[in-house]
């Protein structure tokens, strides 16, 4: 029984670590702020969720604080899952309002790269940094801002 719980704890912790690592890799590989946000979303939903689940199982099997520790872990998970989408949304909206144009395949193919595009693997996918809010980007930002205001 103890053995099974230990194995389950480790499986959950490793699965959580896998999602954290994949999210971090996504932060490096993905082309722009909006797509990177999806990777960041992975770390604070499944990454944190599975690690907290692992700690939850461990707290149940450790047994000296049978109520206090598991309840706190559940509360942490609840607060995290309530607040992280709001932070993500705020980042996305701030980026749109600030004139960052979302990366699209069509723009990437025509060589019009809004931000650092490509992971450096493709030939010709050299990093090309343009400051946000230049000419056309600023024009589009006004449009997006109008559409996004709630």
């Amino acid at each position: 029984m103890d053995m099974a719980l230990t194995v389950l704890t480790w499986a959950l912790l490793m699965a959580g670590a896998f999602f954290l690592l994949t999210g971090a890799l996504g932060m490096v590989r993905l082309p722009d702020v909006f797509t990177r946000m999806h990777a960041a979303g992975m770390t604070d939903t499944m990454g944190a969720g599975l690690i907290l689940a692992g700690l939850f199982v461990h707290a149940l099997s450790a047994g000296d604080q049978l109520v206090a520790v598991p309840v706190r872990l559940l509360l942490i998970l609840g607060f995290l899952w309530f607040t992280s989408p709001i932070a993500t949304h705020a980042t996305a909206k701030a980026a749109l309002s600030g004139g960052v144009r979302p990366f699209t395949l069509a723009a990437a193919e025509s060589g019009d790269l809004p931000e650092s595009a490509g992971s450096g693997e493709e030939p010709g996918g050299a990093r090309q940094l343009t400051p946000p809010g230049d000419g056309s980007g600023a024009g589009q930002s006004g449009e997006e801002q109008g559409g996004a205001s709630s």
Partner: protein
Amino acid sequence: MNRAPWLWGILFALWLLLSWHFEPLFIIFGLFTCTVAVWVSVRMGVVDRESLPVHLIGRAVGYVPWLVWEVFRSNVRVARIILSPRMLVDPSIVHFRASQATDLGRFIYANSITLTPGTVTTGVTGDDMEVHAIVQSEIDGSEENDMNRRVAVLEGKDPR
């Protein structure tokens, strides 16, 4: 529906769960603190059906496990995109129509969209949801419709 007793009950339960002390002194501190907190909240007028949606608790029991499952599925999907050597992303901003009647329902829908990786709500105007999707072609609407319908059910009829 008077929400002040609900608030008091939730706060006191939280007090007991987090302190896990049952000596009379701590119980009295808790009773006093919760009462003051509820009194201040009621005076400020912040105890309403949006800040304390206790009418959703019953139906949320059905919604939350489904949402967790959806979050897991889309996590696996995004992880596969990131880990695949060619990393085929095709991001785009798409629009959905939300069918919830209240702001609270739309808030829950927008947050649920953002919570599932691969889709981030970037703006809500009326019942129009502006969503950034990492792979446009996978957002065919059926899954979002499912979530939209489930949030509308969760929100239910206005019990006020």
